[in-house]
């Protein structure tokens, strides 16, 4: 493989997969807002939903 092809292979991986890693990490750090506008109480089904580790 030529050097320029290798550079673009790596660049594609770094940018696109990097974007995936960065967006996932940022979502893990702030999965939800702390302050929602008032109102919009959902119905209560989510109260007894299966316990799961969300992001």
């Amino acid at each position, binding site marked *: 493989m030529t050097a*320029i*092809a290798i550079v*673009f292979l790596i660049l*594609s*991986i770094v940018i*696109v997969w990097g974007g995936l890693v960065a967006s996932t990490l940022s*979502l893990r750090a702030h999965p939800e807002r702390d302050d*929602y506008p008032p109102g919009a109480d959902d119905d209560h089904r989510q109260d007894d939903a299966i316990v799961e580790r969300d992001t």
Partner: protein
Amino acid sequence: MSTTPSTTTPPREQWTGQVGFILAAIGSAVGLGNIWRFPGVAYENGGGAFLIPYLVALLTAGIPILFLDYAIGHRFRGAAPTAFRRLGGSRGRWLEGLGWFQVAIAFVIGLYYTAVIAWALSYFVFSFDLRWGDDPAAFFTGDYLQTGEPGVSLEFVPGVLLPLAFVWIVTIVVLAAGVAKGLQRANVIFLPLLVVAFLVLVVRALFLDGAAVGLEALFTPDWAALGDPNVWIAAYSQIFFSLSIAFGIMITYASYRRRKSNLTSPGLVVAFANSSFEILAGIGVFATLGFFAVQQSVTVAELEGLTGVGLSFITFPAIVSQMPGGPIFGCLFFGSLTMAGFTSLISVLQVVSAAVQEKFAVGRRAAAVGVGGVSAVLSILLFSTTTGLLALDVADQWANNIGIVASAVLVTVLVIWVFRRGSELRYHLNAVSTFQVGRVWVLLVGVIGPVILAYMLVQRIISLIVDGYGDLPGWYLALFGWGTIAFIVVAAILTSLLRWRRSPDDFTAWPPYPPDDAARTREKETRS
């Protein structure tokens, strides 16, 4: 089951949480196009240099329109017709028709998408003993599909009919099981399985003799391509078709999220996951093509059938036959194709099922069986016969390049310019999300998106009228191509005119817009 009759709307189905939604949305976005379309498109449009228009398209059109779909579905909490009707408000109830336009597109796509998954499933089995023999092209159109002259035939091909019926049964079962127990569970199982199977395939491909030749062909940049407007259009259309945007899927999926849930940050994860899979597919497919080129003692440029049906069902079988351990490679490839297609298919059909559930006030089981049953019969009649391949190719060309693109232009223009809901939807996204979108989002969705998409649409319509398609006779294109579009438009108008069994209009969007004074005062008090 409640025994007391109730006039209130039953609670909306929901994903079990953020992860469930993200997996389902990625499952929907990652489809056949990621595997069979992206690698060839990137190669033909500048190779490594294609990365630039591709990323620009992702950031300026793909992600913004994805957010628009999320905002509409989440704020107006319904399938496409419900959501657009509510968005239109008391004077714009007719906007419901736009929702049905999207539903009709999804219905048509569901009919033939299933057929391709059925082919992939057959080829998964054929891989065991390399049943396509020495001439995969003749095997595919002759022995397997038994393709005849363009026309309408009722001569069924059992080899296609059986897997097709099987795919429909599984699909109906998944839809009937509902959002959390059906769609989400299917994605939780198949998406990780797809990623693992495809990773094994890519690693195997990288160790093939000639893999470097293929990767060099794919990633060597052709800078001149950047000056060609068609390359930019190719990038926008790849991003656009790949993300499953603008035909109701993301509206429907977002409507199953709780009101208080993050929209934009998961959206970024979905968009980048989709592109990540495309890059992975590019590496896997071209490493394999490099091996084939070296075996044939030709260059990659001389190979034929680098995208779509030709790549998957003709070129890949030929390669698999020449490869040590071919059957395993074939199983991985066709298994991946089946899984990627299936997780997209259920999202496409959920668009139709959800719309029917809401308009006709039927339960999800009845809707799944009704919608799935009708679709299955039509799909089998149209695509498991000797004329299936041609009908499929033509319907796909029109439904995608005209149907979906027109839908996107209509949505952006109507929502942003006619109903002027850009700032409201932007406020909605920002009120519930951790990643904030600026005013530039409204600009991208309202100007850049529709301009590029309208250009794509006009260019395609002209080329289909002037040049026709695939050397097929004019009457055939009129019937299966323009006929598809006519069907979609008529179906949209007729379904809009039917009466709602339970009116969706008694609805208050949350959070209120403009944010009321009470909320503002409260905000000030907490700040001081």
